[in-house]
């Protein structure tokens, strides 16, 4: 009887351990569809799958990459190569981010990592990636991503360079604004964004009255809103905010506190989530980024990406457009160098730069002399802006790539091209 019980327990334990092992062995996403009869190039990514923007980016990559492979993939030295993108969850944390990068490099043997989002996981994995000479094309707002010590890492989203053109646009929309209060998350990304935006605002003649920080998981913004209102600014800006429900709660709280001035955001709000919590009056007049897909006469690439996404999922979400430039930069870099060697790609990108098209417009690598980096390391792209009117996001204007670079040079100094 005892022996039978022991055997049963051992059996259950073995089954449990097998399932755990299977679960650990299978990555969150690995797709090389449409890759028949082609060589495969393994590329890695880590995304915060506990957040909407991470989930949306994964969904978008699950559309773009297989379609790209089906269309023939990369042509490398005359041979067709499909991309096998492996995605792990970095939970938007340093610990999980580093663990995911280590797994990609040491277990999956990837030599390229793209499309990461959060500064904390990116910076945590940087030292490993640089040490192992892995090409990293990452998002994130932290200046550490584009510091001169990094040879293989490039910042390919416009999070660091989108603020000067935003304020160029803000001065057009709110010409009489002279004071601003920032409301920012109390983490690496929020502080980096607030610091940069403060510099930009002051360069544009707008005084920053205060920067109010909140914990990332905050839902009750009443007290922060009361404090912000009490300072009586002309405009409120939200550096580092996430685009969804929490952003809506911030605007709701500001409206409830009695603030009726201008509002600025460098991100594209997720209108469905924000509308669920904030009234039309609370959102009215918000100046923010609008995706290229939603402007009058969008580019052919923007139209095709939107169509492919909607074909697969039935609805459209622009949440991922900020984070997928790395994919397009990666493909362009391989085409330019005709190589997948991280040393060759990194060297070419750093010394000769790169220009590429993406759904959100044209983009290019720029130097960051203000960060003591004289190599091409960061990204600027043309920017489209909208304003929320009567609960809907309407196109307000566009800043060209040259004007974006010019506005960055004006604020931060030096020659960026």
């Amino acid at each position: 009887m005892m022996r039978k019980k022991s055997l049963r327990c051992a059996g259950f334990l073995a089954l449990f351990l097998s399932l755990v092992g299977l679960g650990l062995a299978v990555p969150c996403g690995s797709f090389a569809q449409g890759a028949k009869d082609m060589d495969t190039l393994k590329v890695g990514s880590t995304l915060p799958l506990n957040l909407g923007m991470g989930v949306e980016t994964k969904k978008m990559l699950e559309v773009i990459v297989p379609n790209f492979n089906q269309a023939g993939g990369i042509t490398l030295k005359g041979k067709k190569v499909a991309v096998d993108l492996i995605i792990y969850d970095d939970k938007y944390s340093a610990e999980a981010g580093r663990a995911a990068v280590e797994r990609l490099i040491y277990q999956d043997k990837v030599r390229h990592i793209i499309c990461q989002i959060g500064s904390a996981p990116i910076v945590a994995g940087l030292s490993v990636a640089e040490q192992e000479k892995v090409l990293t094309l990452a998002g994130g707002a932290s200046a550490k991503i584009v510091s001169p010590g990094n040879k293989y890492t490039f910042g390919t989203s416009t999070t660091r360079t989108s603020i000067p053109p935003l304020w160029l646009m803000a001065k057009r929309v709110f010409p009489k604004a002279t004071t601003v209060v920032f409301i920012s998350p109390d983490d690496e990304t929020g502080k980096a964004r607030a610091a940069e935006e403060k510099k930009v605002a002051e360069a544009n003649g707008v005084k920053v009255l205060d920067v109010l920080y909140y914990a990332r998981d905050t839902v009750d913004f009443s007290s922060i809103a009361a404090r912000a209102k009490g300072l009586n600014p002309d405009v409120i800006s939200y550096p580092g905010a996430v685009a969804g429900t929490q952003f809506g709660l911030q605007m709701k709280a500001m409206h409830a506190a009695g603030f009726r001035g201008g509002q600025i955001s460098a991100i594209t709000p997720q209108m469905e989530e924000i509308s669920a919590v904030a009234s039309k009056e609370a959102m009215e007049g918000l100046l923010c980024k609008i995706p290229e897909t939603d402007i009058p006469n969008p580019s052919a690439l923007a139209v095709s990406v939107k169509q492919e996404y909607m074909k697969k999922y039935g609805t459209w979400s622009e949440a991922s457009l900020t984070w997928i430039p790395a994919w397009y930069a990666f493909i362009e870099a391989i085409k330019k160098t005709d190589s997948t060697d991280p040393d060759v790609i990194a060297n070419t990108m750093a010394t000769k730069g790169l220009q590429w098209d993406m759904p959100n417009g044209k983009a290019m690598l720029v130097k960051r002399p203000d960060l003591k980096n004289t190599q091409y390391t960061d990204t600027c792209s043309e920017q489209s802006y909208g304003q929320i009117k009567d609960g809907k996001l309407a196109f307000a204007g566009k800043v060209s790539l040259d004007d974006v670079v010019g506005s960055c040079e004006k604020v931060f100094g030096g020659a960026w091209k």
Partner: protein
Amino acid sequence: MSGEVFAQLFVNGLASGMVYVLIASGLILVLGVARIFNFAHGEFYMLGAYATFAFYQALHLNFFLSVAIAVIAVAAFAGVCYRFAFHYMRGNLLLCAAASMGLSMILERGALLGFGTQERGMPSPFTGTLAVGNVVVPVEKMTVILLCVVVMCGLYYLLMSTKLGKAMRAVKLDTEVAALQGVNTTKVYALAMATGCALAGLAGGIIAPLYSITPGMGHTVLLKSFMVLIVGGLESMVGGVVGGLVIGMTLSFGHYLVGGLSEILLFGVIGVILVFKPGGLFGEVVEDV
């Protein structure tokens, strides 16, 4: 700080404090009567919020009806959890606490799988502001305060004037004597668990239109609820009310005055209270003999 800002902060603190009072009252009921240190209490709050969201947003029911159905559903579910889990560990505080931790994990994971990671929001049925002179306060905050006051009055009536309430108080005082007096203690335990968790679910339903709803929303609120118990006294209802208001006000004014250091301020306030009243404001220090 102007009078207008003070009034706004006071109302905000009162609203969030009353929600903590509701949740903590439920926790006190479950601990005091059923003798369960319920680490899954935050998850019942989360379930209440999701259930209200589902009935209001998906089925387009009236908000109050959605909350009422959500509360009944949470209470029934809590009763089932008691019957199939805690009932067999009755009397063993440690075992019940461990079981409640397991239940907490299951409920959170279940919500994650069922509802996804996306934050949910629902439009507030109480829009607009109330203006009294220069003071402007949101209608929804006033509604939350009013609802919580009504519920607490109802709870007081239940405990003081109904047969069930008397039975609960008797079981809390002395289970054996209550049983000898003919009280069905098993039923009382289950009802205490159901009522306590229903209060948490009700708090979740009330708060759902104000903030976002996520599977992890129970954690923060559970921690605050334990703070309420510590400040007010482990098994004191009056202490729960006072503790909740202290926590709510401290956080509201703290966020305004010191921003991100408000949590540290809160712990400081709790520390000072415990120095002078180690058992909480209305609790007793139990000394081992």
